[in-house]
């Protein structure tokens, strides 16, 4: 049985599995010669942006009025 996980853990699993694909992409670009190597910074930038989006989605901005209801 697959245990139900919270959103952060699901996101981390997705991000972790993406590292393999990102590594393959970077390796492919690096081996592809001088022109394709120029795309490596772009791939790294996109990965970092993805990480930032995961973290930003986790920030709770709600002000729920629990103590000062009345």
């Amino acid at each position: 049985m697959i245990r139900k996980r919270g959103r952060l853990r699901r996101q981390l699993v997705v991000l972790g599995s993406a590292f393999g694909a990102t590594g393959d992409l970077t390796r492919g670009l690096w081996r592809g010669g001088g022109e394709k190597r120029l795309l490596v910074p772009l791939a790294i930038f996109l990965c970092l942006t993805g990480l930032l989006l995961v973290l930003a989605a986790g920030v709770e901005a709600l002000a729920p009025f629990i103590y000062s209801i009345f």
Partner: protein
Amino acid sequence: MVDCASLLACPACGAGLGESLLCADCGRLWPAPDGIARLRLDIGARTEIVRQFYDSTPFPNYPPNDSLAWLRARAGRSAFARLLDASIAGDARIAEIGCGTGQTSLYLARADRIVVGLDLSRSALALAASAARRYGIDRVRFVEADLSRLPLAEGAFDLVYCSGVLHHTPDPRAAFAGIVGAVRPGGHVVLGLYNLYARLPLRLRRAIARLTGMRWVPFDPVLRDRKAEPARREAWLRDQYLHPEEHSHSVAEVRRWFAENGLEFVSTYPPALLGGEEPDDLFAPAEDHWPPEQWLAQLGWMRSLGHEGGLFVAVARKPGPAV
């Protein structure tokens, strides 16, 4: 007024009480001056200080010209109050331990529910009972009681709600153990406590306020909101900045209390999940209980809960058939 006799117990011996407040076992007759039963024994010195504190400034108090419409409008702006009300069955028996001036008890006393509101401060209870009469609510009963010897019948309540109370007791862990018995198997405990991390912004504001001799209390939106209501402003100021007894607690600590008392941890409010969605049932188990995520979420509460003192809610369930 609704008959709550079967829900109350003698604080001296724990036996049942009749409507006349006569103990069926030890024969002690408990007084009810001004219609508010006094069901407590002598209290310790530290608790007496807290009692006097709230007797001099009942919390949270009422604004001038309050009404039932005002009470419901105030609750309506709180996602938590709406969720709490929506999650409780229409015929539930509810004990609010530490009801103060009674607003939550009065708000929850709808449909066929029966609510018993208990507090140590008689001044606060007098305001609560007066509001119940003004609003025409008769399914609530207010009782003067002490946490260490609660006058509640064993397993008589579907819900025990205790918010903003235990962190003002000398030993919150022991006080929590004392409230669990009133919940019936399958019932819930809703506990509101200052969070260890979310309380930090207020502690910082309090340090600045003390340095200035309480002349400047910076960045407190609740105080700003109550500028035109001196009594309620004073109640918030004293409760948050001048309280003689205060503790704060982490989610992990509260989960340990639940386990020690045979309760199942259900969830917290706000959810201790990063990016989690707003629940539609307070008593639905949380999606995950991952300690690192709970810790990160509590850091986030400094921002989302810090403006109103850092109080969070933890929900537990007593094992047994569903309510």
